[in-house]
């Protein structure tokens, strides 16, 4: 099966997990964003084109389950997947620590952009409190999840590509 189709199926499974288990069991009230993690991990592994495609599809799926079609998640996740994709080919893929570091940074940027781009949040939110209580803890959670997902996807699809690029 085409690798992109498998990635889309993985994104759908991610969405199902996000709206059920990951939202029900929230240790210390922290909620991750598994779609963001998947987009970042896939883009690091497969490059900017796939990163962009998965960013668009993941963002759309998430927006649909927030009651809007093309909305904030599509707008932020698509360029985020695209930009992260440029990492591919510049790092040693067998280095598992790469994914959590990039995911942590991408998560902080993503959450900050969601606040800045939504009119409901930009003026009403307490930035310092949100950063301390929500954004950083969720980004750490995302980073931990990304390590697990990176190892699984790398072992499944990219095991032979051990060195820089393809």
């Amino acid at each position, binding site marked *: 099966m085409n690798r992109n189709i498998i990635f889309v199926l993985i994104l*759908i499974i991610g*969405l*199902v997990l*996000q*709206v*059920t*288990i990951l*939202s*029900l069991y929230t240790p210390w009230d922290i*909620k991750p*964003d598994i*779609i963001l993690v998947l987009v970042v991990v896939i883009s690091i592994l497969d490059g900017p*084109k796939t990163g*962009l495609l998965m960013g668009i599809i993941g963002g*759309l*799926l*998430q927006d*649909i*389950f*927030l*009651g809007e*079609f*093309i*909305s*904030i*998640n*599509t*707008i932020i996740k*698509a*360029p985020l997947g*695209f930009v992260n994709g440029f990492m591919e080919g510049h790092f040693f893929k067998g280095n598992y620590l790469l994914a959590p570091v990039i995911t942590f940074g991408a998560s902080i940027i993503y*959450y900050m952009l*969601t*606040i800045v781009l*939504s009119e*409901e*949040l930009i003026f*009403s*939110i*307490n930035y310092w*409190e*949100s950063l301390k*209580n*929500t954004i950083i803890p*969720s980004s750490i959670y995302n980073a931990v999840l990304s390590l697990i997902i990176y190892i699984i996807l790398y072992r499944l699809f990219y095991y032979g590509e051990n060195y820089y690029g393809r």
Partner: protein
Amino acid sequence: MDNKGRLIFIAIMIVLLALVGTLYFFNINISYFQYIESGIYNLISPIIEFFSGIYHETVSYWHGLLNVDEVMEKNKKLEKELASLKLQNIMLKGFQRENERLRKLLSFKEHVPFETIGGTVIGFSPSLWENKLIINRGSNDGVRKKMPVISYNGALVGRIDYVGSSSSQISLIYDPEFVVGGIVQRNESRTIGIVKGQLNNDTINIMEKISWDADIKKGDIIVTSGFSNNYPKGLPIGRVQEINSDNYGLSQSADIKLFSSINTVEEVLVITDF
């Protein structure tokens, strides 16, 4: 990809993103997109319902298996409670008949209870900032946008925000975008205000625009005022926890402890005939 190809690809992507951004920021709705949206939503929501069903079944099975003693004890307690409630119910039926008779004598309008549909919670919002629930009732069951949603104990939970064919999304009462008119239930007060959700706080809403000399005190029950056409009158919202001075003393605001504990809600009722 060579350099030229890469540049063209990036340019196309920037143009596409600018288009999508324009659609979002100027709130442009394209009807063709709505078909795709509802198509994808209706395709995925049954998977969520199926998965959520398996998850809840497994959790309750293991919970029952691991806590047999507790479950049996609770069962005994509930049986006793049921017996006393049955007795109470018989008495209340008598009162109801009397009430109806007296209402007719005084030519009062007959009190009609709301028509409701029960729904099971199958999922939650996939976003960090928006508070939503997904239930397994949709347009096929008669659910429409903006219908009020209550918990089984009658407290306001939220309103329907998006409707699919067999599932719908509820915007929750503690979402920062949620606004409802509230009134103090005490007969001698009837103070009004606007109840709003707060970001990152799922137990306390804030009631604003209360006049500076209003009769409101700690412990008062706040119910929906029914002044807007969106919610019926008298749905319980919460209890006043703290009163603060607002707008440099020109008005007051109150912290309202919500009755409905959303995180533990598993089933809700949608009011359909309002």
